[in-house]
């Protein structure tokens, strides 16, 4: 049984599975139940001057019958009093001393305001604080949340104020609604941040009610853009996490990864790309706290199967495998291969390649009413598309080809003395209708 405990900027956590600051961490009762279910830590829903919410708050994107592939919200920070939250923080820490309670905070851009609230939550027993510089709706209109996170100078300055007050580690939660996440992370680090959490939600409109013409979520006869999260945003978040982990200026900055995490595989990917802990929201909003069971079991079994004793050993292992495009081997060749025994004849690979890629698959009906497909080897550019659309597991595989070619990067090839020949590519579009 692999060791799942982690240490992030001095905070010891029984496992890397944390809840993100959001509706699932709104109250002490919820967080206590989450810890009972197996969550290692929780980031308390953002405290500050209590707000009033609108009623209709969430909207989602469904794909082919799967619910909530993406979730959008226009909910604001806590609507409960600071005093009540402080009492509950103390209760939770008393009942769950080994679990991590980080408290998310958002107040106006005033050093005294930050000092006051940080002091209070630390006295209540918080193990750390998280500065919410990411909320992209509502709060940003009032000069907080993403309004701070989108300006590196503000991020740096307010982080520095918080660091002056805080005795516990300070996490800075980053907004993805910027051009290059590295600048935000560098600013947080410059301000003294002990760690960064990312990503917060992405500016979004999930859709429009086609009868009333009102975008969703509908509030009366209007809507407002919200923040997007859930499985749909995971690839965007992974890229940002990896960018910070790969940036020499922030490579040593601990990361708590957030965005679309639902399974142990998602957790492993975040950790491989540099995260130390992860935070979950949408999946719990969809299925409840119980999903953490599968994360424990799956991640532990995975580590055992790889003979890795501790989850910490996994951290960042994939970062070194990220390169700039120009440093990829342009003589690495793969070709698609169809296992005819497994093929069910749906023809999706054919039409995807024919209309959407490189016209390298043939298709014809067979005498028994099925469809036969085959790879035109010489035309295949190894793009992977056919294997992505194929509905049958392991039916289409991409097979590396040793054709006597020598590996060579674009940098080498475009330099003055290329080390070898560019292996010939299939050429398309030379004739029309041929």
């Amino acid at each position, binding site marked *: 049984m692999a060791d799942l405990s982690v240490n992030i900027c001095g905070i010891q956590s029984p496992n890397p599975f944390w809840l993100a600051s959001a509706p699932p961490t709104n109250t002490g009762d919820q967080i206590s139940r989450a810890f009972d279910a197996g969550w290692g830590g929780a980031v308390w829903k953002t405290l500050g001057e209590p707000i009033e919410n609108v009623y209709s708050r969430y909207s989602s994107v469904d794909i082919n*019958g799967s619910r909530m592939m993406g979730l959008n919200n226009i909910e604001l920070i806590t609507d409960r009093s600071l005093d009540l939250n402080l009492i509950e923080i103390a209760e939770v820490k008393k009942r769950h001393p080994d679990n991590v309670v980080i408290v998310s905070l958002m107040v106006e851009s005033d050093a005294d305001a930050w000092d006051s609230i940080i002091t209070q939550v630390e006295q209540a027993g918080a193990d750390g604080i998280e500065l919410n510089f990411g909320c992209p709706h509502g709060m940003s209109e009032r000069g907080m949340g993403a309004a701070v996170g989108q300006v590196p100078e503000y991020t740096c300055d307010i982080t520095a104020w918080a660091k002056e007050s805080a005795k516990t580690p300070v996490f800075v939660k980053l907004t993805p609604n910027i051009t290059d996440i590295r600048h935000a992370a560098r600013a947080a680090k410059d301000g003294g941040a002990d760690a960064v959490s990312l990503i917060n939600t992405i500016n979004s409109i999930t859709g429009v009610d086609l009868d009333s013409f009102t975008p969703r979520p509908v509030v009366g006869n209007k809507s407002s853009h919200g923040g997007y999260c859930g499985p749909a945003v995971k690839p965007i978040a992974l890229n940002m996490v990896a960018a910070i982990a790969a940036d020499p200026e922030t490579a040593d900055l601990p990361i708590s990864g957030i965005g679309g995490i639902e399974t142990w595989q998602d957790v492993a990917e975040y950790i491989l790309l540099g995260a130390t802990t992860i935070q979950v929201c949408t999946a719990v909003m969809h299925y409840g706290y119980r999903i953490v069971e599968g994360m424990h079991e799956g991640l532990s079994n995975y580590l055992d199967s790889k003979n890795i004793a501790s989850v910490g050993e996994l951290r960042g292992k994939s970062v070194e495998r990220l390169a700039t495009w120009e440093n990829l081997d342009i003589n690495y060749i793969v070709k698609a291969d169809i296992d005819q025994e497994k093929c069910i*004849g*749906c*023809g*999706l690979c*054919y039409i995807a390649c024919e209309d959407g890629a490189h016209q390298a698959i043939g*298709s014809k009906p067979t005498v028994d009413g*099925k*469809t036969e497909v085959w790879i035109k080897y010489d035309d295949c550019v190894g793009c992977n598309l056919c294997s992505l659309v194929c*509905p049958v597991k392991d039916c289409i595989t991409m097979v590396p080809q040793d054709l006597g070619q020598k590996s060579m990067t674009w940098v080498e090839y475009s330099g003055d003395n290329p080390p070898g020949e560019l292996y010939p590519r299939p050429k398309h579009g030379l004739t029309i209708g041929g």
Partner: protein
Amino acid sequence: MNQMKSPNGISEALQPAPTMTWDEALVEAHRCLMCWDAPCTRACPTDINVPQFIKRISTGDLIGSARSILGSNILGASCARVCPTEVLCAGACVLNELHERPIDIGRLQAFATDDVVFGGVNIFEVAEPTGHSIGIIGAGPAGLSAGAELAKFGHSVVIYDANEEPGGLNTHGVANYKMDKHTSLREVDFIKSLGVEIRNGVAVGSDVSMDTMMDDHEAVFVGVGLGGVPVLGLEGEDLDGVDDALDFIAALRDGSADVAGQRVAVVGGGNTAVDAVTQSAMAGADRVYLVYRRGRAQMGGYPHDVERALQHGVEFVHWSAPVRIEGEGRVKALASVRTELDDSGVLQTIEGTEYSIPVDRVLRATGQAKLTPFLSTLDSVEIDSGGRVVVDEHHRTGNNRIWAGGDCVNGGKEVVNAVQHGKIAARSIDEALRATAAV
């Protein structure tokens, strides 16, 4: 079995399956892989673009879905119910290769078409009147399909039907658990809404002469189907309780027959025989026997229908040839002898093997007769040795003003085959009439 009666007088057990809800339809539609050059479409005799209509359901566009289906098959609502999808579209579904349940194409098709067909939604533009007139003989699936297509082209169409109600076997001869009579008649109403006129109770050849037909119309489509099941020629066949299985099914459909508690023997091995035994069992018969002179493998009935009959407790009596029906006034038993194939593969009865099954009804389902007496009167129309009308690939007969399709051409197949015949013939008729007009 407790036999509940529904308001239409037909036992609840015989009612067709309920149609899908939106939730069911969406789950099923999303399972479709959207195959390229889809095997389901290739397996459809009317070329319904199955992935297209299913995708339209999944996007909530039922009008578009219905237009896709009905554009290929104007009887899409009844074919959704009566087609042997297990051996056509759903049988070809690639999910079978994954050992998964194939898409329930039939029920999705019903879901997509019901609102339009039974709600009288007008989704087709009928062309400006051309002034051409076509007479159609028979308001069964072939005639209705041809009529609808011709009406859409703007031609004037009159269908003459000998029965009191239109729809052919869809109305009179389909197993009720697949589709009830009311559904068939409502579908006919939809076709009439395209401008097709139907004259029921008018038999061409007796009530109206063929010469009048040829005088009144520029072209004639013959879709007369088949006749009744001929008598077996057995002693006792005139006893009460001995019926043509198709007449019996029709009687069950309008509630005028009751088999609850009875013992029923059906003679034959084709789809009509299997429908008759299954319906009898579902309607509460005490014992149901399918008596067939050959084995299971030689039966013409579809395996999935045979399976359903078995599930309803039907007993299959194979290698048995009826020799006599016993009774006094009414049937009491069916006497049969055992049969076998001899060394040269010819079916032989076995002497000394006669036995009787006590029954209250004997239904013959040994194949419908051809309507040769009428067909042979048609000038220049060739009839083959099997009694089928000979047509070219456009369903035109040897008489260049007469087209034909459906069971009278193929000897008896599915509704969907008849629909395709009517569609092809209509397009050929349209082309011929326009060519004539252009000259």
